[in-house]
């Protein structure tokens, strides 16, 4: 990851690429937040976005600065650059972001979003998108506070009966 992205984060938070050692903490954090354990899913995501990562894929984690032994995972973000899907010019998609509940409002989410934005920009895209459930108040408030607005697409769905 770029030095730039690392340098701009909150002084107590360091953002870096995911490592194999982080996955147990990612699984535990996600289970605490969503109340659903999805170990298999996260191991698969790590394989695709962490270990065999393509240049347009990013799996970043935030940890508190401090000595190496004392650092702990505070959150993570995953995204990738998708090209020509839905007729869109290349753009960065953030499809997962999670922050340790007791560390919210401490700039961890902002640091992660800033770091992945920086990676997207470095890769040559100038637009970032995400999708949030209408009733997910906290993520909506967060992304809005980061300046994200409604985009030009409307998400549609249908029950398959």
């Amino acid at each position, binding site marked *: 990851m770029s030095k730039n992205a690392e340098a701009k984060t909150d002084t107590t938070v360091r953002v870096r690429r995911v490592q194999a050692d982080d996955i147990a903490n990612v699984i535990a954090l996600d289970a605490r937040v969503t109340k659903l354990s999805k170990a298999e899913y996260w191991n698969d995501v790590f394989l695709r976005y962490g270990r065999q990562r393509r240049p347009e894929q990013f799996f970043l984690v935030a940890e508190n600065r401090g000595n190496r032994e004392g650092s702990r995972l505070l959150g993570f973000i995953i995204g990738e650059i998708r090209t020509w899907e839905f007729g869109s010019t290349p753009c960065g998609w953030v499809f997962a972001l999670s922050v340790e509940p007791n560390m919210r*409002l401490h700039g961890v989410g902002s640091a992660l979003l800033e770091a992945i934005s920086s990676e997207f920009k470095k890769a040559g895209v100038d637009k970032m998108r995400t999708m949030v459930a*209408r*009733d997910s*108040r906290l993520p*909506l*408030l967060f*992304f*809005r*506070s980061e*300046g994200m607005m*409604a985009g030009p697409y409307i998400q549609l769905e249908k029950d398959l009966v």
Partner: protein
Amino acid sequence: MRLQISTQLAIFAVLELTASEGRQLSVAEIGRKYAVSSHHLAKVMHVMGRAGLVSSVRGVGGGYQFTGNVRRTTLLDVVQLFEDLSSANQNGAIAATPEDQTLREVLNEIDDIVRATLGSITIATMRKLVGRRSNGRDRRAKGTLSQRKKHLRAD
């Protein structure tokens, strides 16, 4: 979506009061900026006062103060004090035909999006967006000014 004048005034007043921490303004001061009568604005402030969003401070230098949390209070909290944002109401006079039900479904979809949008923007976010727009305008104005100066020098 159109907002009533009272709703717009309420949002503008909240933005004025939250421009800096603990800011206190009279209705006359806010009214002057938006060219509205103090009487109209006083009614708006009264509604917001009842909802606990602002409080009045009496005496010399008194006025109104924002008492909500800028990072928690959303546009929806303000707007729904003045607007009816309930989903397409059940009109008993119209029979619930499939056409009526389908139309309600579409209207409810729109209402849901409106509520979700207003509910996702806090006063703090609004302030950030306003700041960004003001900065952009200042930069453009400065750019135009320096371009004019260059033209003048060239002439």
